[in-house]
């Protein structure tokens, strides 16, 4: 069983990223399930998607302490999902701070030590810098696919399979752009 959580902020496109992962897993012959959040969470709230694939999958939700990967598109959102990681689980987190409404309103503070704390307390933590890739992709909206590209280095699926899954999951006119973003992400050095 592979358990992957995508976490981000409403509007960052974690649902599309998880959809592509599901597609690639299904094409490879796996059973897949996913669970996502709609409604209130879309108004700038936290959004997460749980994706699971294996020969047979029952629960669409990942049990806490069993996630193989948490892919966080924002630093605070990574913090909220740590309890899902398995002891061997890998955290991939984008070096990005998006202020939540209470911070914008001046009634809460964005902690300034999140990145260093994660690096020293999460056994398998990879902080990635997507700034250059997003610049080359031409849009910060490609972040979800760039992060999917980073994740792909940890998974078994071949490049061709990812391209096919992207083709099946996005509108035709966005296919090339997304494949480009995917490879930009894939080539980000993971340290």
């Amino acid at each position, binding site marked *: 069983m592979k358990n992957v959580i995508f976490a981000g902020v409403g509007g960052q496109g974690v649902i599309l990223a998880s959809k592509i992962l599901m597609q690639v897993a299904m094409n490879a012959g796996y059973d897949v*399930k996913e669970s996502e959040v709609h*409604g209130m969470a879309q*108004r700038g*709230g936290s959004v997460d998607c749980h994706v699971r694939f294996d020969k047979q999958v029952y*629960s669409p*939700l990942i049990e*806490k302490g069993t996630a193989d990967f948490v892919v966080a598109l924002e630093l605070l959102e990574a913090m909220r999902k740590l309890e899902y990681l398995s002891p061997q689980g890998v955290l991939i987190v984008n070096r990005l701070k998006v202020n939540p*409404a209470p911070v914008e309103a001046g009634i809460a503070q964005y902690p300034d030590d999140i990145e260093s704390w994660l690096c020293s307390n999460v*056994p398998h933590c990879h902080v990635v810098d997507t700034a250059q890739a997003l610049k080359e992709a031409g849009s910060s909206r490609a972040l979800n696919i760039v992060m999917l590209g980073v994740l792909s280095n940890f998974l078994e699926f071949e490049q061709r399979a990812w391209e096919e899954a992207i083709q099946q999951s996005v509108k035709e006119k966005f296919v090339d752009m997304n494949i480009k973003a995917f490879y930009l992400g894939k080539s980000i050095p993971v340290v």
Partner: protein
Amino acid sequence: MQKKVMLGNEAIARGAYEAGCNVAAAYPGTPSTEILEAIAAQYPDIKAQWSPNEKVALEVVAGASVAGARAMAAMKHVGLNVAADPLFTFSYTGVNGGFVIINADDPGAWSSQNEQDNRHYARAAKLPMIEPTSPQEARMYTRLAFDLSEQFDRPVIVRITTRIAHSQGIVTLEEPCKPELKPFVRNPQKYVMIPAHARPRHVFIEEQMLKLKEYSNNCELNTIEWNSTKRGIITNGVAYQYVKDVCPDASILKIGVAWPLPDAKIHEFCSKVEELYVVEELDPFIEDYVRALGYKPVGKEIIPICGELTPEIIDMALNKKRPKNEIPVYSGSIPGRPPALCKGCPHGFVFEVLKKLDVVVNGDIGCYTLAVLPPYSAMHTQGCMGASIGMHLGFEKARGDEMARNSVAVIGDSTFVHSGITPLIDLVYNKGTGTVIILDNRVTAMTGHQDHPATGRTLKGEETHELDLELLCRAVGVKRVRKIDPKNMEEFEKAVREEIAAKEPSVIISSRKCILTK
């Protein structure tokens, strides 16, 4: 056979299509909204529509059914409250073409004002209710529901929850069937519920429910999966999937027919297992029933009534297993990320003004309910769709004229059309003098931008008559109606001051498009 990854709600749309559903109606509501959207986008032959509210949607569907078509209504759990009146009596009339109601409960209240468990409706209204545990079953059960409806002459409720509606899985697609319209035969004894007709229909539906109990006992929707008999778990809906993961060795009675429950299968199961558990979200609906049959299952003493279940909650309750990883707890404080009004949202201007004026705000259901939170903190009551205006009048009745001079009701355009019109009539009729602000952003925003009668567009994107809110308010007797762009905050503030000071009913239509629409 073609396979596709589908959202539970898309799978329901697919099931309706495969069953030859002819008419579908709904009012948007999380987590049910995508059902009608998927029908409109993917199955153009189905006459699909947004109705002004769930009651009307259910009545349109009832009409279509009696007229001979297969028809389906979809709504969130609280939507069924709105539609409860027709629900209980269409139970008596029964159906002609298959009549299916999709009901989406929201355990955890992800996007709702409560966590009600609508299985109680099936029992109360004497209707069969079936419950899928996955998107694949959502397609199958929706399709099946149409057949059951015609076979037993009952509207059939398909109950899903947020985790079925908004989870994806692999769905196998089947060929659609194309049922002919059934003839409409005039039959007032069946379709006109005067007392003389209702009494014999009550007898009839009790008989039908006995037949359905027989069906429930024998059908594959209620299945015993034998394993070790040391531990037996009765479960339903998405909880079934969690149980499969965390208790792989247990025997399971999977309940797919939530009502009527299968007595014989419950007896068979309970008599053979050593430890008996019921794992169900929200109320002890199955558990109480099993107790009434004479068994003593472990249920709500270890499985919470409140909130959504998760695999770890069940693992902890049944196996005493805590999630494990050794990441320490962060000592600082992690600010939450509550949903908030978008930057530039027209509601924001309105609530800036209301906050400044420090008036009591009777609120309603929509994005603007977020004004209860900082930075506005400018909403003081809210209950259900349309409640703002009635409560506003109640405040005035209780506390007098002074109250009306220091308060407003706020309600969105879609919510106003849904159920704000009758309370506005009440406000005028019963000599209220309060001010109602219609937050008209030209869309049902919260649920993801659906059209409604005042946008002049249908679910299918066709142009139609655009309900004139101003004219409507004048027609019910409000003489002071003004339309103002709230971005002009100075003018808006002046208008609010003047209208709440006026000792007669008034409506301010705050007119500015949702920032997320083009």
